[in-house]
């Protein structure tokens, strides 16, 4: 009995060791966590761009709290969940990760996470328009290209809002999913849509009239 336990725990420890070693490759020793520089290095080793959406997905999988940083705990839990312990395995896992995120059960969670990830200051509730536009492009651009392009155009020209809150954010996704585009036939401003989308639709309708 004991023999088996020790073997498996040895295996576990061995696994953890590899993960930790990988962690230490990128971690900033004085902080004890991977900082933006480290992430950049990781990205280049993985062969993806720093701004690639897959890195955001990785952060989501790791449940990373702070943008640009991975703690050791997050790293360990995340890589274990991915079932990887080496760089090459991680590279392969990234494409699987994309499919995992796209599953309807995960997508909304990932989408919400993406916003939260941008809240870098303590007590920050909203994200500035510039960053939102980039994030929208990154996260929804592929699936909803025409809507996102149009929405981003509007966000940049309007000046009612300088920041976007999480409620507005979550409704952008709902908008893309539910509202027919580009006719916007089934959009009704009397319903619970946030005001910014009411304004966007008005702007669109004026543009096309």
């Amino acid at each position: 009995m004991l023999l088996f336990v020790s073997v498996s725990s040895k295996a576990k420890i061995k696994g953890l060791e590899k993960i930790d070693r990988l962690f230490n490759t990128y971690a900033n020793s004085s902080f004890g966590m991977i900082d933006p520089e480290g992430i950049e290095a990781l990205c280049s080793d993985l062969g993806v761009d720093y701004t690639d959406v897959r890195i955001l997905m990785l952060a989501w999988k790791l449940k990373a709290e702070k943008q640009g940083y991975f703690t050791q705990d997050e790293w360990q839990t995340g890589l274990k969940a991915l079932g990887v312990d080496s760089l090459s395995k991680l590279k392969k896992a990234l494409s699987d990760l994309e499919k995992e995120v796209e599953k309807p059960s995960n997508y909304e969670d990932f989408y919400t996470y993406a916003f939260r990830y941008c809240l870098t200051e303590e007590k920050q509730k909203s994200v500035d328009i510039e960053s939102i536009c980039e994030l929208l492009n990154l996260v929804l651009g592929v699936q909803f290209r025409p809507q996102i392009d149009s929405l981003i155009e509007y966000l940049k020209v309007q000046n009612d809002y300088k920041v976007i809150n999480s409620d507005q954010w979550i409704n952008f996704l709902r908008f893309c999913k539910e509202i027919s585009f580009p006719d916007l036939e089934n959009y009704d401003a009397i319903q619970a849509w946030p005001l910014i989308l009411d304004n966007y639709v008005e702007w669109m309708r004026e543009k096309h009239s």
Partner: protein
Amino acid sequence: MGCENIEFDQGWGEMEKGIEKLKRILAGEKETPFTSREYMTLYTTIYNMCNQKAPHDYSEQLYDKYKETLDEYITSIILPSLKDKHDEFMLRELVERWLNHKIMFIIQRSVPALNEVGTTCFLNLVYEDVHPTIKDIVLSLIDKEREGEQIDRALLKNALDIFVEMGGGQMNRYQDDFEAPFLQETSNYFSRKASKWIEEASCPDYLLKSEECLKKEVDKVSNYLHSSTETKLIEKVQHELLVVYVNQLLEKEDSGIKVLFRDDKVDDLSRTYRVYNKISQGLDLVANVFKQHVTIEGTAFVQQAEEAASNQASNTPGGHEQVLVKNILELHDNYMTYLNSCFQNHNLFHKALKEAFEVFCNKNVYGSPSAEILASFADHILRKGGSEKLSDEVIEETLEKMALSTVVKLLQYVIDKDVFAEFYRKKLARRLLFDRGTNDDQERSILSKLKQQFGAPLTSKMEGMVTDVVLAKENQSSYQEYLRNNPDVHPGLDFTVTVLTTGFWPSYKSFDLSLPPEMVKCVEVFKGFYGTKTKHRKLTWIYSLGTSHINGKFEPKPIELIVSTHQAAVLLLFNASERLSYSEIVAQLNLAHDDLIRLLHSLSCAKYKILNKEPSSRSISQSDSFKFNPNFTDKMRRIKVPLPPVDERKKVIEDVDKDRPYAIDAAIVRIMKSRKVMTHQQLISETIEQLSRMFKVCLEISNIKSIKKRIEDLITRDYMERDRDNSHMFRYLA
């Protein structure tokens, strides 16, 4: 009898004999009546003939032969007899012939098919031919009756029964051949009558006539018309008499509704209600005229007030406002009484009254919004409230109470209630701070009435103000005690401070006034005292609200001057300098030009010339100079030098507009807090409902947008959140 078959000719021979006999009877010739035996024989013969076995069943031949006989009888006897008669006689003849004809059926009872033959023959040969004529005769008789003549009602009834019976179970002959033309004729008749009466008769008389006509027409139904005609008949008559001319009738110059009200004709008004109540949507018509009438009366009062204001003839400032409010209240009470006594408290009339009042209770009078007028009205009463009462205290108080409940009553028709609240608040502030002996009870009583009717948001700040003043008195005692315990810090002046809680009171500009040194000391001492009581409060001094008592050592005699603190600051400058120019005063006091001009005017160009101005023109200019006037005097030893208040109207309206988003916020939070979870739709409609108690807001896009904006803000501030699964539901976050 035996089972022998009866041959046709034999059987028919029997029948013919019977028919001939009957004809003779009907013709009135001498003839013995049928015996039972004779009847029996006839029945049996026919019965057998129809029920014999083939080839001896003769029903068809019998049918044909019988029809032939009938046709012959009708054509040769009945029709001629009808054709040579007219009018009533024709009618009579027809009825008689038909009744006789029905007797013939007795013979046929055993064979149902033959029964129908009788009716069909009569229908085709007689009825089809004569019914238009008959109808005309009937209609002319009916019209005769309408004109007051007596007619044979039984005859009419019988005649109309024929129409019914000719339908053979259906009402179509009666309806098509009689009823439709009858209704048309009725419409025409009453249309002619109505157009005549509307010119000649007064409104009450017309109504009486109409009531009578309707009664008589209903009578016709029970006497000779078929019951199914009743509803249609009544509808036609009501339409021609009462609906077509309703406006002309009720708006009659000399006798219409407005006169009925003027002369308190309760019976006539009740009749109007009663008569129109019976007409579908009739009351709508009356309520409409009523609404217009009330609107005109109310608007006339507003016009009067407008004219009085522009003439400025009355020297009682706001006198026209008093009169206007009193007039409107009387109007209201008056018509409420009528609603009860004549209109059965029907909610159509309540609604009409409300809509009428809403029209003129929201008109401006000479630039003054109605909300302001109402607030001034209340202010006027409450200002008298504490001062010396006249002889009959009880009556005075009752009148005041009634007057104050007037305000509450009329406020329900004012749309922008928050404008009223703001004006009221400003005037309340002046009463609390400047009036001696304000009647706290009365103030609180009206506030609680307002709260009851219109909700706490309207009055909560004002209640806070009243409390502040009460607390201030307590505070003042503590301050006196503090001075007693620290005699060395005593500033040497009697100094009373009222500490106001910022959120409750209207916002006041605070000037950086340079105080005279005597006053500076007072302020410092009080600050020291206040610091011992609470650490975390900041005091902002509003000198414009202060009052000072200054002793003026004038040559004739010393006089105590009651002035505002700002005025005092100006006057005290002259203790140090004999003569000051305008610019010097500006420099020393640090006041804005508008305010300083007002102050100097009150001290040198108004009723009391305490300062002499050079040049002594009637208005202040920035090049003027001022000197203390040692010769100033008055018969009193103590005078109040008034400072006319600044027109606050524009500011009030600005302030209210600024406050409205917060009112929306507060409403949303209140609703969410109590309901915890709501759908978007519910939240919008409830918010609008609550807000419309305060100001005009309806369910339209711009308001929905405003509310959405506030919701958004509240979400950001974590007061509420959207449900994750139901995007149209919101939850309150504690």
